[in-house]
């Protein structure tokens, strides 16, 4: 397996969706390829950082305005 072939499977590999038969081949490639190890590790980290950090916080007062709008709708129709 070369780097392009590894890269083609990277998405499924990150999501644990690689067919069982192929996992060994991917791992064998990783053992001999530092570049793909770095790509894998830093891509995992990229996902983790975006998942763990809230970059858009809920604006103050939005929830209250929303609840008021729902209550108003409810008074009309429920």
């Amino acid at each position: 397996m070369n780097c392009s072939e590894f890269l083609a499977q990277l998405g499924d590999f990150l999501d644990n969706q690689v067919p069982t038969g192929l996992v060994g081949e991917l791992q064998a490639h990783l053992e001999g390829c530092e570049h793909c190890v770095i790509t894998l590790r830093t891509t995992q980290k990229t996902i983790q950082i975006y998942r763990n950090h809230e970059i858009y916080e809920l604006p103050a007062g939005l929830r209250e305005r929303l609840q008021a709008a729902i209550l108003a709708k409810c008074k009309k129709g429920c």
Partner: protein
Amino acid sequence: MPIIQAQGTEEVHPDILLVNRARQGDVQAFEQLVKQYDRQVFRIAQHITQNREDAEDVVQDAFLKAYEKLEQFQGNSKFYTWLVRIAVNESLMRLRKRRTGRMVSIDEDVETEEGSMPRDLAEWRPDPEMMYGQSELAEILRKTIQGLPPGFRVVFVLRDVEGLSTEETAETLGLSVPAVKSRLLRARLQLRERLSRYFRKNEDGTK
């Protein structure tokens, strides 16, 4: 009205119970759903519209629409996924209004080779996010993701940030599963490549 009931030991998702209560007129049950999901809906709307005012309007419109259409919710998908679909559609409508005459291409494939082959192969620092203060890091992450093509950005946000499955993301965006997978990988690799300049061990990439 289809009421979803537990069969045998199968557990009913707590959202379904809240939806059923809301359908029967319990507005507090719906408010509970708002509290659970307003952050996520706001984030998705902000990522798509790139405009805070529009994103706030989307949150309001999406929840009100969900409330109005609660009877149409079938219960064969998760409430959250159903809500996200409404929010994505509302966001795209806002975007199109704001950009009349300009192409809004979240449903088009983007011809770009960027990120298809990693160029920056430097190792990152062990805890790269610790190198920056919270607000500086948030700014880096915002700037970096804003640079992605919209069609890649929305797939990454739904799949990797908001935790929808590949199939749910495909259904929400009207894309095929292979298209979602391909965009997701390219989005991840482009973000990785762009973040590398902030997080790599050495300035010049050498060891």
